[in-house]
C-alpha cells in the first residue's frame, strides 16, 4: 500500500506547484461566494425558513459550496481529465506496464489533488466568508469527525463517477461528450446551482438520490446538521454510492484492460 500513499503525496506536491492558479482560483471562489450570498440573502428574506434552512444556514451553504467545488471536482478535475486524455490518445498503455492497479493509482492521484485543493482552495473562501458573515460551524468534535468523513466520501463518490466517465473513452471515440453531460448533471444535482432542499416534490426526491447529491449536498448538510434522516443515514447513503461506483469502476477497468489486451485497443 506504500506506493499508493507515495503517489498521493506526490500528487499533493504536484498541485502545490501551481501557486498562481491556486491563488486566482481561490479569489474567484470568494467573488462568487459574495454574489451567491447576495442572491440567497434576498431569497431567504422573502421566504424565511425556505427548505428548512435559516439565513445563516443559507450563507454557510454558499461558502462551503464555493470551498468544495474544486476539491470535489464538480466541474471535473485535472486528474481524471488527464486519465480521459490518456485513454483517448492510447497512452493509457503505459499505465498498464506498471505493477499497480489502475483504479487505485488514479484514486491516489485524485486524493492527493483533493487534499491540496481542500486545504488551499476550500479553506481560503471559507475564511473570508466567516470574517464577513455570521456562519454556522460544527458544534462538537463528533460532528467535525462526521464532516471529515462525509467530505472524504463525497470526493470518493465524485471520483467514482469521473473515473467511469474517463474510461468510457475505451468504448466511444471521444469521452468529452460524456464528460460534458456528466458536468451538467453534476452542476444541477450536486446542489452547486441551488441547494437540493429547494427542489420540490419528486424532482427533489430524485435529485437527492443521485450520486451527485452525495458529493456536495450531503457533506454540507452534515456540516449544518440538517440531513433529513440524520448523519448516520447520510453517511450510509454515500457509502452505498461508493460501493456501487467502486464495483462499476473495477468492472470497467477489467473490461477496458481486456479490450486492450485481447482486442488491441
Amino acid at each position, binding site marked *: 500500500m*506504500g506506493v499508493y500513499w507515495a503517489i498521493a503525496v506526490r500528487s499533493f*506536491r504536484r498541485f502545490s*506547484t501551481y501557486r498562481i492558479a491556486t491563488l486566482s482560483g481561490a479569489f474567484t471562489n470568494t467573488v462568487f461566494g459574495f454574489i451567491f450570498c447576495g442572491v440567497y440573502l434576498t431569497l431567504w428574506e422573502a421566504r424565511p425558513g425556505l427548505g428548512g434552512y435559516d439565513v445563516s444556514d443559507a450563507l454557510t451553504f454558499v461558502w462551503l459550496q464555493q470551498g468544495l467545488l474544486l476539491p470535489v471536482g464538480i466541474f471535473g478535475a485535472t486528474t481524471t481529465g488527464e486519465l480521459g486524455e490518456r485513454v483517448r490518445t492510447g497512452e493509457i498503455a503505459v499505465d498498464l506496464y506498471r505493477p499497480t492497479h489502475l483504479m487505485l493509482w488514479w484514486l491516489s492521484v485524485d486524493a492527493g489533488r483533493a487534499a491540496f485543493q481542500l486545504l488551499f482552495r476550500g479553506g481560503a473562501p471559507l475564511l473570508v466568508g466567516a470574517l464577513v458573515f455570521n456562519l454556522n460551524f460544527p458544534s462538537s468534535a463528533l460532528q467535525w469527525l462526521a464532516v471529515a468523513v462525509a467530505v472524504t466520501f463525497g470526493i470518493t463518490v465524485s471520483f467514482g463517477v469521473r473515473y467511469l466517465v474517463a474510461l468510457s473513452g475505451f468504448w466511444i471515440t471521444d469521452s468529452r461528450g460524456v464528460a460534458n453531460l456528466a458536468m451538467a448533471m453534476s452542476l444541477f444535482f450536486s446542489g452547486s446551482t441551488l441547494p437540493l432542499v429547494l427542489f420540490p416534490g419528486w424532482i427533489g426526491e430524485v435529485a437527492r438520490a443521485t450520486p451527485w447529491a452525495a458529493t456536495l449536498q450531503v457533506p454540507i448538510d452534515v456540516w449544518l446538521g440538517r440531513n433529513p434522516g440524520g448523519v448516520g443515514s447520510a453517511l450510509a447513503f454515500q457509502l452505498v454510492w461508493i460501493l456501487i461506483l467502486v464495483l462499476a469502476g473495477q468492472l470497467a477497468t477489467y473490461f477496458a484492460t481486456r479490450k486492450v489486451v485481447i482486442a488491441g485497443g
Partner: protein
Amino acid sequence: MSVIELENVSRAFTVSSRTGFRRTRREVRAVDGLSFTVEPGEVMGYIGPNGAGKSTTIKMLTGILVPTSGSIRVAGVDPSRNRLKLAKRIGVVFGQRTTLWWDLPLKDSFAVLQKMYGVPRARHRENLATFVELLDLGDLLDVPVRQLSLGQRMRGDIAAALLHDPEIVYLDEPTIGLDIISKARLREFLAQVNKERQTTIILTTHDLDDIEALCSRVMVIDHGHQVFDGTLTGLRASQSAPRTLIVDLATSLPPIEIPGTTVTKTEGPRQHLTFPPTTSAAPLVAQIAASYPLVDLSISDPTIESIIARLYATPHRSSEVSDM
C-alpha cells in the same frame, strides 16, 4: 535457458472501415508466425519499417496484448496471464513518452518507483547512486521534469526503467530526437549496464548507429515476418548490394567499358561504376588503369541503411531469411 521464447506467434487485428452505410471488416496480421529466442544478457536490435509489427511484438512480450495464436514465455511465464507479476521484472522506455512526474523534481519520480517496485531501500540507494553518477543526473535531481531538456529527460527515463533491477529492458527508440553527444553517452551507459548487470536488452530503433554500437544481434521484421536474424556483419553479407567504384579520370570521356561493371553516373571526368560484391576490386582497378587516364579512385561499400532498404523492398516470406 532462454529468457524470451516465441513460438509461431501471430497477432491479427480487425480493422473496420466504412464506406457510406456499408461496413467492411478486414483482418490485418500485424505479426505473422514469429519464432525466436533471446538468451539472458543479449542485446538485440529489433528493426523494421513503420508498421512492421515491432510495437505489437513488444506489447505481446510485456503482456499488454495477447497473441492470436502461438506461445510466448518471458522470464519463464506467459506475459499476458502474469502481466502485473512480470511488470516487476521488466523495464520499459518509450522514447516519445515519459513515465516521470512532469511537474515534480526528478527525485520524486524515483522515490515513487522505489515503493512501486518494492525495492529494498539500501538497494535503491545503491542503484540510484550508480545511475546518478553514470548518467550525470546529480544536478538534475531537484529540477522539475518539465524543465529538463529532451536528452536529460531521456536519461531520467532510462534510470527510472532500471532502478528495480529488471531482468529485461525494452527500449523503444531511446535515442529519438537526441543530439550526437547525448546519443553516444546513452549508448555507452546501456552497454555498461548490459555488461555489469547482464540485463537483457531489446532495442527498437530507426537509428542504425544504435545497433552498430550496442547490438550483438539484429532482427529485422517486415510485414509481420522475420526477414533477418543474425549479426550486423551477417546482415551486410546477406544482401548482395552492389559496391561502387568512383573513378576520377584526367578528362571527360564516354562511359568506361569493363566487363562485369556498369556506369551508373558520370559527372564530367568522374564516373561511378557499380560491381557485384563477389567481385574483387583490384583487377578492375588494374584494367581501368591500363586503358584509361586514371587520376584518383575510391570504393564505397553499401551502407547498412541501403542494405536494410533492400531487405524491406524484398517480397516477404522469401527464401532470403537468413539463419545465422
